[in-house]
């Protein structure tokens, strides 16, 4: 039984005890007292009357007058005089007057008072026996009234006590519930902190738990930043902090295969001409400054579009990947502006050649790099240094205009979503869940998400598609009882109504939610932490497992997520690729997996291509793998 329930029961029990006890005692003692008083009165009055009558002449009229006088002027129920033989000589009797007292109360109290008796003497002989009963019906009313008053008083006292108890319970309940919640969270390795409550005992508990959570947070911050230093050393150019060639191309590859809106976008290539001479004129340090600020400017261009990556392909070539950027003209303009201001701030003699190209699902890395390279040659020939846009081979597109896309997508979504399935497996080959990117039936065949996702994003159909995917996933679960993982788009996450809608739908889904896994890209969760928190808080109680994908570049911010109760982390392919031969990568992934385990989080590797990688990953302690090499 809960503490609060016990408290309530105690209050009720005490009140009832006090009420019944005092009512019983009061009624019983009053009853006893009244009985005594009436008894004495009966006896005394009978004797007094008998004494007076004994002194008189025993004629009928005097006797009757005496009885009548006593009866009429006093409060009697009955006065009777019987002869020694038992016949009634004189009798006066009155009704009982009990008007407004319920019968059950009279039966309950029922005074037991015997009448007073005395003998009237006539000389030596007995003239008669006098029996006298006082009127005591008034006593029922008095007793009834006082019982009513007492009941009323107790009702009032009860109300006040209930108010007090309610107030106490209320002041205890909230902190208590919070403490329980926090304790539960911590036992589920969700190291939350809560506000210290006012109640002393609870405050100490909460303080202890907060200290624990704080210590965990600190430990996590320390460990993750150590790992991040390692990761940066591995994946970033030491001078400019841009990504290395391998990392950047891995990112691009991931985008192309991502089955999300990132599957199409813009690529910018910037070459710093005559870097060797610049090194001489500006000095080593000056040249480094130039390159660093170039990377900075490229980042700023990318940030305008959201999650962009900047990398250094070689000494003088820098590349910017802007997923979901569609309007190449405006990107070109932004790029020009930034490059010009860079030149103005450093040295006008610097020559920066730049080209732009789009990329989309189905492209290959080499083909895109070749297209950029060939156009860059043309750009270098120009004197105005304006950004050039590749006029490469026209690729086949499903639709050409926005209107056509809108129509095609709406039709396809109305027809229904199909889910692809890519398994995530544990070390024994068991299924953890299926990754289930959506497919739409467009122009005669099922199309991968990479084709339509950029347009779904552009046409703001994200939430509709997310809901459609959820429905398809629930259907799959109820049919096959297999765990299914689906994505939530960044736009849906920001939409409070969507989350509400999602929660409602999942509440109706019953046990199916146990098999549902939901994942978001790491950067989406980190950049919209408030919404992500809300999502976790709403979905986790329903049994949905929430996790992050593409974890890597912002792993050091993971300490901020330690109280969310994440179920799994999927580590980015750029950390996984070639793991079997890179000890640095191994160190990083081992550390990440260990940290994840310390929070009760599953560690899963993405982009696993072959058996050697898989083996190395499980040796490092990862719980699951997924990727093209996992069947």
């Amino acid at each position: 039984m809960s503490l609060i329930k016990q408290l309530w029961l105690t209050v009720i029990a005490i009140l009832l005890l006090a009420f019944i006890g005092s009512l019983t005692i009061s009624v019983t003692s009053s009853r006893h007292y009244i009985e005594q008083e009436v008894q004495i009165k009966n006896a005394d009055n009978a004797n007094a009357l008998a004494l007076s009558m004994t002194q008189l002449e025993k004629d009928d009229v005097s006797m009757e007058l005496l009885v009548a006088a006593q009866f009429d002027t006093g409060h009697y129920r009955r006065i009777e005089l019987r002869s020694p033989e038992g016949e009634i000589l004189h009798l006066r009797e009155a009704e009982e007057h009990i008007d407004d007292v319920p019968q059950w109360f009279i039966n309950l109290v029922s005074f037991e008072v015997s009448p007073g008796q005395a003998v009237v003497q006539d000389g030596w002989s007995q003239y008669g026996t006098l029996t006298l009963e006082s009127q005591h019906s008034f006593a029922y009313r008095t007793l009834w009234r006082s019982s009513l008053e007492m009941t009323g008083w107790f009702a009032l006292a009860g109300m006040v006590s209930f108010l007090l108890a309610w107030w106490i319970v209320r002041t205890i309940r909230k902190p208590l519930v919070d403490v329980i919640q926090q304790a539960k969270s911590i036992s589920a390795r969700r190291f939350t902190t809560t506000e210290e409550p006012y109640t002393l005992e609870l405050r100490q508990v909460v303080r202890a738990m907060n200290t624990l959570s704080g210590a965990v947070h600190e430990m996590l911050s320390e460990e993750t930043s150590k790992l991040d230093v390692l990761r940066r050393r591995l994946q970033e150019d030491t001078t400019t902090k841009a990504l290395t060639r391998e990392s950047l191309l891995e990112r691009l590859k991931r985008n192309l295969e991502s089955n999300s809106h990132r599957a199409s976008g813009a690529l910018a290539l910037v070459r710093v001409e005559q870097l060797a001479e610049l090194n001489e004129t500006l000095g080593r340090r000056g040249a480094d400054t130039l390159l660093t600020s170039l990377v900075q400017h490229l980042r700023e261009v990318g940030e305008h579009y959201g999650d962009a990556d900047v990398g250094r392909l070689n000494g003088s070539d820098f590349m910017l990947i802007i997923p979901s950027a569609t309007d190449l003209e405006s990107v070109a303009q932004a790029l020009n502006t930034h490059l010009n201001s860079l030149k103005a701030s450093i040295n006008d003699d610097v020559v920066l050649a730049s080209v732009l190209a789009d990329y989309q699902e189905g492209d290959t890395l080499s083909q895109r790099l070749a297209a950029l390279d060939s156009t860059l040659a043309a750009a270098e020939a120009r004197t105005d240094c304006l950004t050039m846009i590749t006029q490469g081979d026209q690729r086949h597109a499903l639709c050409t205009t926005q209107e056509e896309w809108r129509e095609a997508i709406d039709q396809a979504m109305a027809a229904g979503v199909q889910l692809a399935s890519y398994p995530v497996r544990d070390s024994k080959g068991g299924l953890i869940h299926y990754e289930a990117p959506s497919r739409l039936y467009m122009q005669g065949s099922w199309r991968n998400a990479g084709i339509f996702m950029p347009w779904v994003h552009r046409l703001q159909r994200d939430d509709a598609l997310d809901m459609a995917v959820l429905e398809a996933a629930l259907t799959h679960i109820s049919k096959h009882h297999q765990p299914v993982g689906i994505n939530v788009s960044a736009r849906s996450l920001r939409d409070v109504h969507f989350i509400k809608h999602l929660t409602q739908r999942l509440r109706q889904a019953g046990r199916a939610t146990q098999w549902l896994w939901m994942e978001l890209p790491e950067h989406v969760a980190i950049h919209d932490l408030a919404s992500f928190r809300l999502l976790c808080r709403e979905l986790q109680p329903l049994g949905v497992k929430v996790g992050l994908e593409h974890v890597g570049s912002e792993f050091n911010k993971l300490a901020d997520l330690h109280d969310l109760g994440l179920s799994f982390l999927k580590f980015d392919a750029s950390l996984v690729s070639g793991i079997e031969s890179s000890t640095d990568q191994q160190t990083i992934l081992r550390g990440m997996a260990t940290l994840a385990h310390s929070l009760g989080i599953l560690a899963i590797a993405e982009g696993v291509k072959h058996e050697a990688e898989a083996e190395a990953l499980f040796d490092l302690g990862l719980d699951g793998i997924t990727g093209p090499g996992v069947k």
Partner: protein
Amino acid sequence: MGVVVATGALSYFPGSANAFNPQRLRNSMNRLYGTRGVQTLEEWFALLNRLRGANVATQLRNVNGFFNRRVLWRDDIQIWGQEDYWATPLETMGKGEGDCEDYSIAKYITLKALGVSGNKLRMIYVRARIGRSQITQAHMVLGFYQTPASEPLVLDNLVASIQPASRRNDLDPVFSFNSSGLWAGNSNNSRADPMARLSRWRSVVSRMQEQGFV
């Protein structure tokens, strides 16, 4: 607390509320008046044994004689140091002295102990003329009514023999009572009852219960 004490007392003397208990009487007498009192009490027990089963006339005569012989008539103020004290038969026998009502009470209780119905016995307040003088004195006698309507026999300590009331010209009846009028119904358990101290009759009854008469 009061409830606890009362039940404790009752359970200590089981059935003592209305039971004739010779052993208790002996103990009470021994404690209050020593061996001389106990001797009188034993004689009284012998009287009871002798008269049990005898006819009423014999019982009346012997009981009347027993107390008239054994008890010396003195005023309460001399015996007890107070104006009017109703003594129990035990006190009367213990002291060997008594006032008129002490005789009456002792005879009343003895006759009841012999099985005479309480309804037939009444204590009667009378005005008594002593000797041939015209001085009258408040007095009490015990009357025996064969039936409620009949003329009573008078058991008196002034006159040794029992006579019908009509023969007692020296006595002038004023009022009479017995236990049924004063000690009625539900107040049998009067030892714990504070009302007992309020009335002389009730007071003597309660002392008699303590000592073991009734």
